[in-house]
């Protein structure tokens, strides 16, 4: 049953077989994409026609590779920009929220905390349409009363950032709070009794302690933003992010360049995960 208990052969073999099948199920789609990215064919699936790097570098009428496809490169760039700003804003506000809910006491704290957790149980689609509705209303109101046209209230790059930030901050808050719970409060009290101001304590003592969690939360917020589709689709303007671009290509014009982009994403994530794994193991 467990490591320390003896078990029948059949049980162990059956269990291992199931786990193997599960991992095959898990990596099958990823491995398939990675192999087919190098297929010398006009179609996204089989048959295998030989090895080729065309879908990365070709620039002919028939084949437009990933690194020559300016629209695709532009949407990748948009996704990086979006991810950066979402991660930045989420990290700042999420960390503030963690400090607020862990260290301060005030009226309606429970209600506010509930609201801060709400994005976990609001479907992304609902978050997207509600922000679209209210920003459109606000934009119309400003235009009617003051005659000003506020661009970021219409579907645009900044509205996507705002929409993704609305739930990104929740994840940052949870990650930073988890670390803050392990913080030794006597350190803060010692600093305060030595006449440090509250802001100095946060800046010199609390934030350095939280640094690993804050960096981790920044990366998590970036990745959440980078792969988000459900909220983004309602807020996106003329410059699509990578998931929005991929979606319309899958639906309407799939060429093997999709395999090439997917391969790059899979390779990048796997590499990043391996690096963090080995760094983590070294530090132990």
């Amino acid at each position: 049953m467990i490591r320390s208990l003896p078990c029948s052969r059949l049980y162990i073999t059956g269990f291992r077989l199931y786990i193997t099948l599960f991992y095959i199920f898990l990596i099958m789609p990823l491995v398939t994409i990675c192999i087919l990215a190098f297929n010398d064919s006009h179609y996204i699936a089989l048959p295998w026609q030989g090895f080729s790097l065309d879908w990365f570098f070709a620039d002919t009428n028939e084949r437009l590779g990933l690194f020559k496809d300016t629209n695709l490169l532009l949407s990748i760039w948009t996704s990086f920009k979006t991810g950066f700003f979402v991660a930045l804003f989420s990290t700042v506000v999420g960390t503030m929220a963690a400090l607020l809910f862990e260290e301060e006491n005030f009226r309606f704290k429970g209600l506010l905390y509930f609201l801060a957790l709400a994005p976990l149980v609001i479907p992304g689609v609902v978050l997207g349409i509600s922000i679209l509705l209210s920003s459109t209303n606000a934009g119309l109101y400003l235009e009617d009363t003051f005659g000003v046209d506020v661009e970021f209230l219409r579907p645009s790059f900044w509205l996507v950032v705002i929409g993704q930030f609305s739930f990104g901050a929740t994840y940052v808050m949870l990650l930073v709070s988890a670390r803050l719970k392990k913080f030794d409060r006597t350190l803060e009290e010692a600093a305060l009794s030595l006449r440090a101001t509250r802001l100095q304590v946060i800046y010199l003592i609390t934030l350095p302690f939280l640094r690993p969690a804050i960096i981790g939360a920044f990366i998590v917020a970036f990745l959440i933003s980078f792969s988000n589709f459900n909220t983004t689709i309602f807020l996106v303007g003329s410059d699509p992010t990578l998931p929005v671009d991929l979606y319309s290509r899958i639906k309407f014009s799939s060429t093997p360049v999709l395999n090439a982009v997917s391969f790059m994403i899979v390779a990048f994530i796997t590499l990043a995960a391996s690096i963090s794994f080995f760094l983590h193991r070294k530090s132990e």
Partner: protein
Amino acid sequence: MKKSNSTFYLLITPVLLWLLALIVIPHLDMLFRSFRFETDDGSWVFSLNNYLAFFEDKIYWLTFVQTALYSIGVTILAFVVTFPVAFFLTKVVGKRYSSFMTLLLLIPIWIGELVTVYGWMILLRDNGVINSFLLKIGVINSPIEMLFTNFSMTIGLLYISMLFMIVPMMSALESMDDSLIEAASDLGASKWTIFRQIVIPYTTPGIVSGGIIVFMLVIGDYVAPNILGGKSSLWFTEQIYNKFLASFNWSEGAAFGFLLLLLSSCIVWVALKLSGQKLDKVGS
């Protein structure tokens, strides 16, 4: 510890701004909009027409019910599929392999659903990898139709959501003392008894929080039903999407969005009540 007021206001202002401007007001706006109806002469009146449209047209509420039942089904399926894996990684396999195998579980999460759903599309096509393989070894004579069915949609939904269930279950299992199982085994309990009376009750918090995350991801998903599902696999988010981006009937879309929010909140609330847990446990 003495708190200074200025720090408190510095922390609460951005947090309040975030929660009011991006969570509270947009959802009130959505609720308000769902009761507004544009008459033939172009003026807006209060009305229940948007909700009546939902009940009058069979396709809408059938989709609604189907989405709810399917989401619960996929959540249960995710538990059945992943529980043995979580148990294996925490209790059976050695520490050295377990950290590597856990890392493998995280990779598909960060790659994002668009790429993985696309991977399944390639695998399940008529000329896809699985059909080509089966044809080659002679198990079948003509391709099995797998893509654009409820089967492919279920696979996609399961794949994108199940890994979010393993992580909370693993942390619950990790804190469980092995000697509990050893003691029960010494006293002659069968595997099934140990599983039902010790392991499951102990893991319940992890199962509930993982289940809620999976359920929310599935019910709010658009990509997997839209790309992998067929004509009969209608998903309620697709109806919302059509109302907003195809027929531009935002009022009905708002009503549908509110219904989806109501449905998911009710089911999550029931799950929390039945298991006696709090929402903030789900986040951590």
